[in-house]
């Protein structure tokens, strides 16, 4: 090799062609996001903690187990029925911590503000963040603020990172999912995505459609406190229920059976989805999760979850089948069966 030749590092291949650009689909949480992560981003930072692909990184420091996570929020509009960007910025990070079974403790917050943003809007968002953090039992302890030129932001972008303590010693991970586990869904799906979309598109409904955004740590902590052996948890965000199930079946190398009749969807969401040609299973949520629980404990888990308003309508939507084929078999209301796939690209632009 001559001096002038560029050395190519084979561990960091560029899987995308040189003239390709980032599209909105790469942020959808579906197949394109997955490709961006696994083919471009992960190879640069490869390490065993990152490779687990959890919502939070689990860190051992001395005898203490901690969960650490980060999330950015670029939602438009900033305010929508049932929530706002400030609420989402707290709940998103709290929920990522909760999904590892951690008790959320501390948050950082970075604000990227666009020149010209009314101070009034900013203070409304901050008040909402403050209230939500207090309600979630988490303290915002450090932060940063930057301002970008007018036209280079969308009012407010927020990044939050969070730390939580893992007080239990069970391992909550896709690899723990076992044949016979029951799949519990914490409530009806698709309300956040459709509330944002309806607001954006000026759609109105007889029964107003509110986002489901909420903190999920309390119901999870009750399960753990009562000795429920949670095998796996996943909050449903971009990509919806279908994408979460497909991702977990791949990581767990297991077959899931899911019943359409068991999945609660409100009439307003069903109607809006039918009208816009969307599938509720792919619509975003901000306050819903799925839990994989051993069948013997499923009833007890349901009773505990139903004591919390955020998971009051929890129900069993399916089970883990035998065999190690990574697939999600979806049984329709009519009794026919098909396979679920991840959301391929973009179903809605920037909803969380």
């Amino acid at each position, binding site marked *: 090799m001559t001096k002038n030749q560029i050395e190519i590092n084979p561990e960091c291949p560029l899987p995308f062609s040189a003239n390709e*650009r*980032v*599209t*909105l*689909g790469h942020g959808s949480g*579906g*197949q*394109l996001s997955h*490709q961006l992560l*696994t083919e471009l981003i992960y*190879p640069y930072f*490869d390490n065993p903690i990152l*490779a687990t692909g959890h919502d939070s990184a689990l860190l051992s420091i001395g005898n203490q187990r901690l969960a650490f996570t980060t999330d950015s929020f670029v939602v438009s509009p900033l305010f929508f029925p049932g929530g706002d960007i400030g609420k989402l910025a707290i709940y998103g990070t709290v929920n990522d911590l909760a999904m590892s079974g951690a008790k959320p403790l501390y948050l950082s917050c970075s604000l990227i503000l666009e020149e010209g943003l009314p101070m009034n809007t900013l203070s409304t968002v901050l008040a909402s963040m403050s209230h939500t953090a207090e309600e979630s039992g988490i303290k915002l302890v450090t932060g940063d603020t930057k301002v970008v030129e007018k036209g280079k932001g969308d009012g407010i972008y927020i990044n939050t990172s969070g730390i939580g303590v893992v007080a239990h010693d069970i391992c909550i991970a896709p690899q723990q999912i076992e044949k016979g586990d029951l799949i519990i869904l914490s409530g009806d799906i698709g309300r956040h995505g459709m509330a944002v979309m309806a607001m954006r*598109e000026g759609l109105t409904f007889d029964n107003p459609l509110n986002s489901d955004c909420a903190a999920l740590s309390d119901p999870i902590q009750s399960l753990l406190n009562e000795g429920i052996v949670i095998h796996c948890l996943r909050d449903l965000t971009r990509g919806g229920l279908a994408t979460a199930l497909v991702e977990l079946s*791949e990581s767990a*190398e297991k077959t899931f059976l899911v019943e359409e009749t068991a999945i609660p969807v409100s*009439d307003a969401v*069903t*109607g809006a989805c*039918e009208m816009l*040609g969307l599938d509720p299973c792919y619509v975003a949520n901000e306050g819903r999760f799925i839990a994989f629980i051993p069948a013997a404990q499923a009833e007890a888990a349901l009773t505990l979850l139903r004591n919390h308003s955020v998971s009051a309508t929890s129900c069993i939507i399916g089970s883990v089948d035998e065999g190690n*084929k*990574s*697939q999600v*078999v979806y049984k*329709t*209301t*009519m*009794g*026919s*069966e*098909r*396979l679920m*796939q991840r959301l*391929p*690209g973009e179903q809605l*632009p920037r909803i969380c």
Partner: protein
Amino acid sequence: MKYMHEYRQADTIKQLADKIADVTSQPWTIMEVCGGQTNAIVKFGLQQFLPSHIELVHGPGCPVCVTPVDIIDNAIDIAARPNVIFCSFGDMLRVPGSAKDLQSVKAEGGDIRIVYSPMDALKLAQKHPDKEVVFLAIGFETTAPANAMAAYQARAKGINNFSLLTSQFLVPPAIEAMCQSPQSRIQGFLAAGHVCTIMGYESYPQLAEKYGVPIVVTGFEPLDILQGIFLCVQQLEQGRSEVENQYSRVVSQQGNVPAQQMITEVFECQSQSWRGIGHIPHSGLRLRETFRPFDAGQKFGLPDRISSANSTDDTTGCISGEIMQGLKKPCDCIHFAKQCRPESPIGAPMVSSEGACAAYYRYATFNESVAFNKRATAQTSEKTAKRRDQ
């Protein structure tokens, strides 16, 4: 939900499936014309309720799929220009042109907006009088009235910075072209319910009679489609070739007359190229002379190749034409679920929610997709193995 769950109930579906099985004595091949029907068939796994010797083949009724490459290239040309706001239905953004798609133009800085109606684009034109606002007006007889109305109102209100890049198709000439094809295996048609909502079905009896094929105007819910199949099979078994209206709760024989008048006022018939299928005489619409100032192709000085037989061929290796004429299934394509996936489509049917390939990919049914299944599993385990190796 009212008027939806009633059409998806397991017991009524089962009763109808039994009736179809009872009436079927031999193999039949039936085409559902509309992509919306294809999507419902695959999404709800309706083939699972049919006797194995009834084959459903998927028709050309997906506007995104049949829009010619030349139109996409013209759209890309216009959308990349400064001072243009280019409006489109969302699906069109990812349809490959000869070199790239509209989504790439957007990522490169083109002002491309997703709208749900041409009237939204017209409002944008009023709001931005200093910009040229162009709407990509694609579709069948279903979208034609709204597109016509946009041009009509633009002229009436003098909104001269608005124009339409049109690619409008007509269904009956396409059905006739398929009936005339010597390769055709189609023995009966489920006509597209929504197209008939606008146009009625008075033009169908002569087709049914001339080519000896039953045509059943059919809706989009699982029960509609199974009932359409039942009526079609019943006719085939009895040796009849008539027009029946399964979707009578929506479709009348005359259709929506004011909508038809609006179409006729603004558009005139022309020959049209269909992507993957080719040139079909009298199968398209273009703006009439009096509305030409609102024709984006003319306004931006772009070549019109879609009304001639010299349109650009799709050279990507996509077999959409054969799929949409019922000659092949998505799984027969060597690119299906390999190079051609929804996130990196080679052909338009992998893009649109009404495209047969996208439906097969997204809703691969449990029994029909063994080959696809194996491929997907192999790829997953390959990826997992790679991850482990790293």
